[in-house]
């Protein structure tokens, strides 16, 4: 079976004043439809670059990204991005921000009434119907991130790309949003690729965790299958041995394997991918 999303032996180089900087080297992995995949690694290892590559915001130097049989040539609304710092437009309300995206994607084919329904449904989905007419500066950090997620989901993307979506939030808000995201993903069956540096978050949310080596020349170190049944409950998982095994495996990689590039683990990744 063909994979839904494939990052195919891709390298990314940036031209800097001090010469060529190779951020990613031969990154290769596949994502099935409806799968939740996390990218984890130390800061600066290029995991966000992988996400931007799929989003089309960064162009590959070699290799390429294929989504549903078509090569990614640039950014597009079928690959919605939830940005790290929410990136809501501060002069638009929560409704306005989501409506801008909805209008772009469905405006050509649907009535204005239907667009309004879609926008309101998206607000409802993230539990922000009451904050409809508030501007971003009137919303808390968690609410802004919710609007960002709602905006992305309202576009009904083929892939939802999330760049450390909960990184800037406090622990309680983060846990709350993680639960909402799990629940929403179960309902919408979205395909998700998420960048994170939080081990617990990666295991809790993902079907597979892609571990990246340190940059420059960052590549995939290992890929871990998280065989935990869904729906997942964070309290029950705290006593689950499989959960702890997964966390331990990632921690071990980040503390040892991520520091230097193990060729053995890279081969393993290719085999799994």
């Amino acid at each position, binding site marked *: 079976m063909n994979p839904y999303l494939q990052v195919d032996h891709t390298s990314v180089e940036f031209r800097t004043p001090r010469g060529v900087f190779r951020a990613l080297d031969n990154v290769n992995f596949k994502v099935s439809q409806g799968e939740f995949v996390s990218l984890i690694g130390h800061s600066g290892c290029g995991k966000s670059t992988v996400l931007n590559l799929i989003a089309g915001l960064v162009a590959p130097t070699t290799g390429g990204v294929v989504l549903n049989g078509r090569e990614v040539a640039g*950014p*597009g609304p079928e*690959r*919605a*991005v939830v940005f790290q710092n929410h990136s809501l*437009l*501060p002069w638009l309300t929560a409704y306005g921000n989501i409506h801008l*995206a909805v209008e772009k994607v469905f405006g050509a084919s649907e009535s204005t009434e239907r667009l309004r329904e879609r926008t309101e449904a998206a607000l409802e989905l993230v539990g922000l119907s009451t904050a409809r007419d508030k501007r971003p500066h009137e919303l808390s950090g968690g609410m802004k991130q919710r609007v960002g997620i709602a905006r992305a989901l309202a576009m009904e993307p083929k892939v939802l790309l999330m760049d450390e979506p909960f990184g800037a939030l406090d622990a309680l808000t983060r846990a709350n949003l993680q639960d909402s995201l799990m629940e929403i993903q179960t309902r919408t069956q979205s395909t998700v690729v998420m960048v994170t540096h939080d081990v617990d978050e990666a295991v809790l949310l993902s079907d597979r965790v892609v571990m990246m080596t340190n940059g420059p020349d960052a590549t995939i170190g290992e890929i871990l299958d998280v065989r935990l049944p869904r729906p997942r409950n964070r309290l029950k998982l705290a006593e689950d041995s499989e959960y702890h095994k997964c966390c331990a495996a990632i921690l071990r990689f980040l503390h040892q394997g991520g520091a230097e590039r193990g060729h053995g683990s890279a081969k393993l990744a290719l085999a799994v991918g």
Partner: protein
Amino acid sequence: MSAATQIVHTVETRSVTAAPAAANAPVSGMAAKPKLASRIAESFIGFGKNALPPFIGMAVLIGLWALVATFSDYLPGPRATFTAAVELFSDPFYIKGPNDVGIGWNVLQSLGRVGMGFGLAALVGIPLGFLLGRFSLLSKAFNPVISLLRPVSPLAWLPIGLAVFKAADPAAIFVIFICSIWPMILNTAMGVAALPQDYMNVARVLQLSEWKIFTKILLPATVPYVLTGAKLALGIAWLVIVASEMLTGGVGIGFWVWDEWNNMNMSHIIIAIIVIGSVGLALEAGMAKLAQRFDYRHQ
């Protein structure tokens, strides 16, 4: 600017809270009295803290002026100037001939020239600023030109204006146009260039059209910068109009100052300075109000 508006704002709220308290004082019952008394006391303290210092500053200035005037043969003191001002403002809109009209007409004429030159500069400068900010090739081409022309005193353009338009009035407007266009171009371009990459990434992911990018992202993000540019431009324009009218003549507050100098009417010159200052202050306050109205951060 924000500090200044803040102070003005607190003064306003103080006086607003003080007024009803004072009005209610005689009719309100016994029970409310202690609370009311403390409120009145508080508003007096507030008045003392906020409104008194400006009065002290003014008093110091007027005192110094009176002191200098006693030692000078030509400089009239505050009292003489006040008497002249009362006479002058008793009929500000008289017309006794083409070049002898009241101070009100002179100020209005000057404001008209500033409005014309400033408006034209906005029409040309703001779109130009958008283009320069959006397309780096254009900014590379025109930044050296702007850098070369910007430091030139606007009055140096007056002969060019006179040569091209062969009349004093359009030449003065031209000078205002030149002096107010630079801050408009530069601030607008800066606002466009300072647009966070995140917003552009949103636009790219959504594949917004260039028109949508302009109306939904570029324009609202840049409006505060544009209005800062306009505020600077208007301030400069009001500075420059006085000087350029001194050179071109006709009707206008600048020429009026020059005329009164030729008449050796020093008290009128002092009055003109106060009038020019007040109008400049009003223009700046108006622009600040406008900027607040259109700035998404204050809505």
